[in-house]
């Protein structure tokens, strides 16, 4: 991997925060990606599906616009094949059970000073650090 992207990280993070403010101020909704997705996966009212679909379409379009301007979207995978499928299942299952992911608990929940979100964020970061340690340094 190249050098840390600290300035890009700060700017990108600021944009993520700004997007969360916009959705809360106008729609009164929390910009938690796993929750926005799971509302579509498990049904819901038609009017509810519309804003969720629009948000996710915008999410892909935003990344796509960047890719068009910068000439690509470099992705480097650690896991492949079955590992990637297993990881996807765990991410989907876990975020649904715990009602949130990095954006919902990490960015929005912490801003609401939610003890649930603080605990969830500390838990998933801690477990992910242990997982990466085992995957990269113990079983390799």
């Amino acid at each position, binding site marked *: 991997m190249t050098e840390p*992207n600290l300035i890009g990280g700060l700017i990108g993070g600021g944009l993520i925060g700004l997007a969360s403010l916009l959705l809360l101020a*106008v729609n009164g909704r929390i910009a938690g990606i796993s929750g926005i997705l799971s509302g579509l996966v498990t049904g819901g009212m038609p009017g509810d599906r519309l804003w969720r679909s629009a948000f996710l379409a*915008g999410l892909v379009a935003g990344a796509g*616009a960047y890719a068009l301007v910068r000439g690509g979207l470099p992705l480097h995978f650690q896991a492949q094949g079955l590992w990637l499928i297993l990881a*996807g299942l765990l*991410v989907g*299952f876990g975020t649904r059970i715990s009602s949130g*992911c990095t954006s919902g608990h990490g960015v929005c929940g912490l801003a609401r000073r939610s003890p649930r979100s603080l605990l969830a964020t500390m838990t998933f970061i801690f477990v992910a650090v242990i997982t*990466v340690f085992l995957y990269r340094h113990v079983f390799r």
Partner: protein
Amino acid sequence: MKTVASSLLSGFIFGLGLAVSQMIDPARVIGFLDVAGRWDATLLFVMGGALAVTVPGFPVILSRPHPLLAPKFSLPAKTEIDRPLIIGAAIFGVGWGLAGFCPGPALAALASLSPSVVLFVAAMIAGQWLASRVELRSRGASQTVCDDGGQL
């Protein structure tokens, strides 16, 4: 219709932020989580940048009587620390550590048209669906609390 437009715009800015910060690249995230390797602080700066906006901004917005284009704020109702919160977060952590993908970056990365991303997102949707089945089974008929199906 305006709420759909603002939702689309919010998603667009969010996706742009994920791309600019390079959180969309699993290697960046793994670099942060790999504390025993060549540690990459980028994710910390992304969280910092986002919280620098939301921590002061949220209270101001939530002090208003209602959102600009909606009758009320839809916020998570749960406040108690329960087992699903911790167990679910831990399960998510394992998947996040394995792939370096959490839901936002994974969905935004669909823009790359990479088959690996499609595979991961399909599995993630299946995982959410499975969890909703488990929730339905474990939730008694006596449940009357309004649950809007994963607000976050």
